[in-house]
């Protein structure tokens, strides 16, 4: 029996004070691979168990299958496919993938490489002669936002509007009714409504006007599965807009931070541009943008590592902990861009494997590869840097770097 109660470890992980370095606490958590919490939920923290349960057909992503869903968990309106199970999940993801990747749209990400390089180039050009830059505000945030806006067909100038909605929304993801003010939840609910209403407005103008962007393709295309309803398109666009930049910003920022902490690797990356491919994979393992899948539901009783999780129980999956599991990865706390057999959990696993993973990879590869070659002897201003609140989408809120003469 691997079940014991370790509520304190999880509480400390979620507490803001451990944001800069949650990894020792993950190690503590892994001593109990499947840990039952006081409230009846379960936390899974080891690689094998996370990987197994993500492939288990009895695991549900639908809040309706939780026996006691936390307030605020149930999204307003039609859920996006991330919060649905097969066959609905499969249908909606298939409909979205028709316009994003193989087999119907195989060249999309490759075709964007020129545009990605140009976008990165414009941001980097502004760094010349600047002594101090903020990797987040000046680079890691504007880049993926521009990319996802372009892809979806969201006007770039509306960014300040949805930036605030997305912030409020992300802040409410880990809402805890016991410790957090109700306002945090209310702001998230309102932001969700506003964002959907905004996207609905954009969508309306796309009907009958097929264009190149994803919104108009979804609005006008009829495949073998039919067409998404407007509510489904809005839910999908909403998901892609949020996931499309709230995660990549962390990947790029965590990447730059890790490189500054490993100057020899940074130097190598300048000399061996191809190193960026395995390096980004190692980043996804070592400092992933998404640390936690906050909840899944047991659709029926699930047995993991000898522990039976009862039907309806809430399950939290500690992805970042799994990717640091010494029973899966040799010397897991070492950042090793030459690592082989690196099947990390950075993009999750199973049917909900990150939809935008191929784009995120290319974005991070191009961003980091260009950045290290254009900065002049970059130095970290503060280590650790200040972090964002969220323990789920974890990354620095600012990453100040000085360059040039010192």
């Amino acid at each position: 029996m691997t079940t014991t109660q370790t509520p304190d470890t999880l509480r400390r992980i979620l507490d803001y004070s451990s944001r800069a370095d949650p990894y020792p606490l993950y190690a503590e958590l892994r001593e109990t691979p499947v840990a039952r919490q006081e409230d009846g939920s379960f936390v899974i923290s080891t690689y094998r168990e996370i990987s197994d349960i993500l492939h288990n057909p009895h695991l549900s992503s639908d809040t309706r299958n939780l026996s006691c869903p936390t307030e605020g968990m149930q999204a307003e309106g039609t859920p996006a496919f991330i919060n649905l199970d097969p066959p609905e999940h499969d249908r909606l993801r298939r409909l979205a993938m028709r316009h994003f990747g193989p087999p119907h749209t195989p060249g999309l990400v490759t075709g964007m490489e020129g545009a990605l390089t140009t976008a990165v180039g414009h941001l980097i050009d502004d760094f010349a002669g600047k002594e101090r830059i903020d990797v987040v505000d000046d680079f890691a945030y504007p880049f993926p936002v521009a990319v996802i806006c372009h892809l979806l067909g969201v006007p770039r100038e509306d960014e300040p509007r949805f930036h605030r909605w997305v912030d409020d929304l992300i802040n409410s993801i880990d809402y805890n009714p016991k410790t957090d003010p109700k306002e945090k939840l209310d702001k998230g609910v309102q932001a969700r409504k506003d964002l959907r209403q905004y996207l609905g407005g954009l969508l309306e103008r796309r009907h009958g006007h097929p264009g190149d962007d994803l919104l108009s393709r979804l609005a006008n295309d009829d495949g073998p599965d039919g067409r998404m309803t407007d509510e489904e398109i809005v839910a999908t666009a909403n998901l892609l807009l949020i996931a499309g930049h709230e995660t990549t910003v962390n990947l790029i920022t965590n990447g730059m931070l890790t490189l500054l902490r490993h100057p020899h690797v940074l130097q190598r990356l300048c000399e061996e541009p191809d190193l960026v491919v395995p390096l980004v994979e190692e980043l996804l393992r070592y400092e992933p943008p998404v640390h936690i899948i906050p909840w899944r539901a047991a659709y029926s009783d699930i047995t993991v590592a000898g522990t039976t999780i009862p039907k309806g129980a809430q399950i939290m999956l500690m992805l970042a902990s799994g990717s640091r599991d010494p029973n899966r990865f040799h010397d897991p706390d070492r950042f090793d861009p030459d690592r082989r057999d690196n099947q990390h959990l950075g993009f999750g696993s199973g049917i909900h494997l990150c939809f935008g993973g191929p784009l995120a990879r290319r974005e991070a590869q191009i961003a980091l590869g260009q950045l290290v070659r254009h900065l002049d002897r970059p130095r970290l201003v503060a280590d650790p840097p200040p972090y964002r609140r969220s323990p789920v989408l974890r990354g620095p809120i600012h990453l100040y770097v000085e360059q040039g003469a010192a």
Partner: protein
Amino acid sequence: MTSADNLQAFKRAGRIVVVGASLAGLRAAEALRGEGFTGSLTMIGDELGEPYDRPPLSKQVLTGWVPADNTKLPRRRDVDAEWLLGVPASGLDLANNHVRLADGREVPFDRVLISTGVRARPWFVESEAALDGVFVVRTREHAEALQRALAAGPSRVLVIGAGFTGSEIASVCRERDIPVTVAELAPAPLVGALGAMIGDVAADVQRAHGVDLRCGVKVTQLEGDAQGRLRRAHFDDGTTVDADVAVVALGGIRNTDWLRDSGLAAGVWGIACDTGCRALDLNGLVTDDVFVAGDVARCPNPIYEYRLISLEHWANAVEQAEVAAHNMVSGQADRWPHLTLPLFWSIQFGINIKSVGVPTFADEVVVTQGSVPDHRFVAAYGYRGRVTAAVSFNNAKWLDHYRRLIETAAPFPPPCPTPDQPADTKPVPVDFPGPALLAQGATVVVTGHDPSERRVTAAYQHR
């Protein structure tokens, strides 16, 4: 090779010969170098040219998307080998440790890996097989020739045999809008590998895609015209079909003929070996210096009651090659057993079919997830109350779960429910057509009286 010193000397300066330079042979050679083997390495292969990948030959090459010569296998490292290509091996002399080539050359070795694979089973009447328009698909040249014939726009293609290769070829024909007839002796396509229930699904899929599917019939004659071109096929029910292309997809023949006098337990069923890929001799004794990998290996699998199983699977070839290579340069204490579960995939009629485990090792099958009418489902196979295999149609991402069920001998049928519950969750008999005798033709004669002199010889006349 009894002491560590000998092993070190062998790793440094020994001689390894790999017979069969396709997927298993190449991966083994790479693994040998990866394991630190620095001695001489000789690759023997009957085909000219570099090792290439075969799965695309019945798929992307036939659609014309990928040219046949663009299927070279990627190299993981430089193997620094001597390549003796274009001449098949004709014999293995275990008294003197050398491989004989068909041109009379002899290649000495300290250890040998046999990965000679499978060749296509030809049409049983030689003169009919020689007709213009009659094809098999196993090699790059075969695929290239068939691709050209398909590109010429034949009036109708006849595919003989509805196993995986035959079904994939029929799918390509429909994709290219070529009329196709599929003739299968069994009651349905794929039935020999996946059983009657999946066979019925496969039959529906083929018919829905416009295949003229004829099951339970045997092609008795391929008829040519005066110019030696195929024009018609005759069936045992008296019917005929006019076709200018016929593809014979009746499975393969294991390339073991050259081992007939080697003293190894080799025959039509393959070459028997232990889980460490060491070949067995005719007496069933494990040899020290002869290893087997790939389609030609017949290896016991503890998960399936230690039965000897031969698999013509891509992943199996790669995994066996790595295990064989490791064991060739390792001492007894470091040996690895080949214990991975069989994994197989096919793409046909827009459906990704994937399986894990051994579906033929089953008595019941049940749909566990998804919808059969939508051709999106997972079915689990069970044998005496435990899960032994699973197959997915457009649902491959779940198979890891079933792999774990098989590895842990989980009870069959697996517990329900799942969110994507199928309409019918009752197991049905798996229903394979006739038990195939795996070791057919393995007739031997035992001679001698004392335990020290008891020996087996092969009785080939009984084949």
